């Protein structure tokens, strides 16, 4: 019943396919069934206590500090936070792409489909990348090799991991290009990245990420470098394709609107820590942490009074060298009390289920109801 089964027709605009909730559910169960022979993992990705540090001349920057989260099979998880909070580094750590030097994963477990990725040899990890884990980077202009054709670049992972014949690989590349909405795909195989617009290049990046049908896609701010009008198209494309291929997505963004539209669950990060986590509904309707309040509050609203200043969170994020034993948000928090300055709150449950927050004030015995 899904009209997207055959290739997008050769006309210019991609066909926008609406998936009904049933279809989405079916795609999800397919994804779980895809687990394969007996690993029986609960989640596709389980990150436990991940810590990634950067050794700089100014000191050791604890970019990611004891971070834990899960991504279910076929699920879309959002990792939200401002610049420098550690979300990109978390994603790079999962794929073990953190530049070493100066970075190093110093602690933690990352279980991908039941395998501890951090214990794999470099060679085995290499085989996982591109095949089971796909990456979409932020800036499509600099993320593509300017001296190779896009056809070649899309095909690299295919040739490396899938062992297809040249002809079969070529067909697959053309199919991928069509699926991501690039018209006249076959002719454009021999074109170079500079011959494409920004949005088109990002579609090529998506094709590269999907080329070997990975179980997980790490999308690091995939639309930040694009025009607003193109952003919506790209996001919709990612959502549609991840549903179609039953791929889990870890979506990193600083834009709450994007997170709201795309994700099933959201983790809010601040200063290298996860400070709140829950389903999209839980987070947006009942946030439990002053930082989350600030984030939501800072979104301009349609009923704002003209001429009033935009609302921001005063202050700057902290330096991540030798972090103090205190709540990292406390200098900017209007509700901070002594306990916030002397010890760091843990990530504790709020309400039911998996809504958790890291804040003394909103705990059951805290001073905010």
């Amino acid at each position: 019943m899904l009209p997207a089964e055959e290739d997008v027709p050769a006309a210019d605009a991609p066909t926008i396919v609406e998936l009904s909730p049933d279809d989405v559910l079916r795609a999800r169960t397919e994804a779980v069934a895809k687990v394969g022979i007996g690993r029986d993992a609960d989640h596709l990705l389980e990150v436990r206590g991940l810590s990634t540090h950067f050794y700089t001349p100014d000191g050791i920057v604890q970019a990611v500090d004891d971070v834990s989260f899960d991504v279910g099979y076929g699920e879309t998880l959002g990792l939200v936070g401002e610049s420098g909070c550690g979300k990109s580094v978390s994603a790079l750590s999962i794929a073990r792409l953190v530049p070493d030097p100066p970075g190093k994963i110093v602690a933690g477990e990352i279980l991908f489909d039941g395998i501890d990725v951090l214990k794999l040899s470099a060679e085995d990890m290499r085989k996982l990348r591109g095949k089971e884990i796909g990456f979409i980077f932020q800036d499509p202009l600099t993320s593509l090799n300017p001296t190779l054709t896009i056809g070649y670049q899309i095909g690299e992972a295919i040739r490396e991991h899938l062992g297809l014949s040249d002809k079969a690989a070529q067909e697959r590349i053309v199919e991928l290009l069509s699926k991501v909405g690039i018209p006249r795909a076959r002719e454009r195989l021999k074109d170079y990245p500079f011959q494409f617009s920004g949005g088109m290049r990002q579609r090529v990046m998506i094709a590269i990420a999907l080329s070997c049908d990975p179980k997980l896609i790490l999308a690091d701010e995939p639309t930040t470098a694009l025009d607003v009008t193109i952003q919506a198209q790209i996001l919709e494309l990612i959502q549609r394709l991840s549903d179609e291929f039953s791929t889990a997505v870890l979506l990193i963004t600083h834009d709450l609107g994007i997170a709201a539209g795309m994700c099933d669950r959201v983790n809010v990060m601040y200063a290298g820590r996860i400070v709140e986590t829950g389903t999209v509904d839980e987070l947006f309707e009942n946030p439990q942490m002053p930082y989350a309040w600030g984030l939501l509050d800072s979104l301009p609203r349609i009923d704002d009074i003209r001429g009033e200043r935009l609302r921001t969170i005063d202050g700057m994020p902290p330096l991540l060298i030798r972090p103090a034993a205190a709540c990292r948000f406390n200098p900017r928090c209007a509700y901070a009390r002594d306990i916030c300055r002397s010890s760091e709150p843990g990530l504790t449950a709020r309400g039911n289920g998996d809504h958790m927050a890291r804040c003394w004030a909103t705990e059951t015995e805290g001073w905010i109801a």
Partner: protein
Amino acid sequence: MGTYILKRVLWLIPVVFAVSAITFTLMHMVPGGPWSSERAVSPGVQAKINKQYGLDKPIPLQYVDWVVSLAQGDFGPSFRYADRSVNAIIADGLPKSIQLGVMAFIVAVALGIPLGVFAALGHNKAPDYAATGISIIGIATPSFVLAILLVVLFSVVLKWFPTGGWKGPETWVLPVIALAGYQVAVIARYTRASMLEVTRKDYIRTAQSKGLRSRAVVTRHMLRNALIPVVTILGPIFAFLVTGSFIIETFFGIPGIGRYYVQGIAGRDYGMIMATTVIFALAVAVLNVIVDVLYAFIDPRIRYS
């Protein structure tokens, strides 16, 4: 692309003419004539010889004469080697100079680029220090100093190679190394810097995220992009080799046109000076055009625009 190449090639002609005109002028400003340093010749004989060679005409006219003669492919007589024409001398010496220059170029590139890549890939570790060390020696030693050291060590002390001449492979080794030494270092350093810059680029991270083998990442992604800027310095490198060649030729007694240039200046051999300068300038200019075209060709962004 075609028009670009054509324009560059056509542009060579006025440039070489300008070079020749400047040289001609300077040359005639050198005091004395072709006869002043040799045996004393009486003024009467001098005047007769001047007339015979057209040296009594005003300088601009002499230049015109020279151009006309050049158009017919004749560089004129040599004043120093009275029995031979400049054409003959050049025909004799040019192949040797070209051979020297080409070999030095190949050595410089064949050693310099791998050295630079090696250093960059082992950044801040042993390979980097070793390669940088070699580069340091290269840039610290002018070609004539290197020549002296090589001759002392390999010719005089070890007696592995002869001290000069140009007959057969043993005579090629030392001059080529002396000429190429500095350039190896320059190319190595430049390649290293370019590779290090490319290593930081985003598309390298993309290539790694695809799970490609590191060999593929290095050759297909790093080298391809890193070598493009290196091509741009090959032109000046060749120019340096061309001009440096005559010191080496003089030092090792190689009968190439570089040596004739030096002798020509000393002996006011006008024909020789003009001929060698024009050839050198033409060589440098042509090579620069080749390098520019090559650069435009390998960078697809330029090729298509």
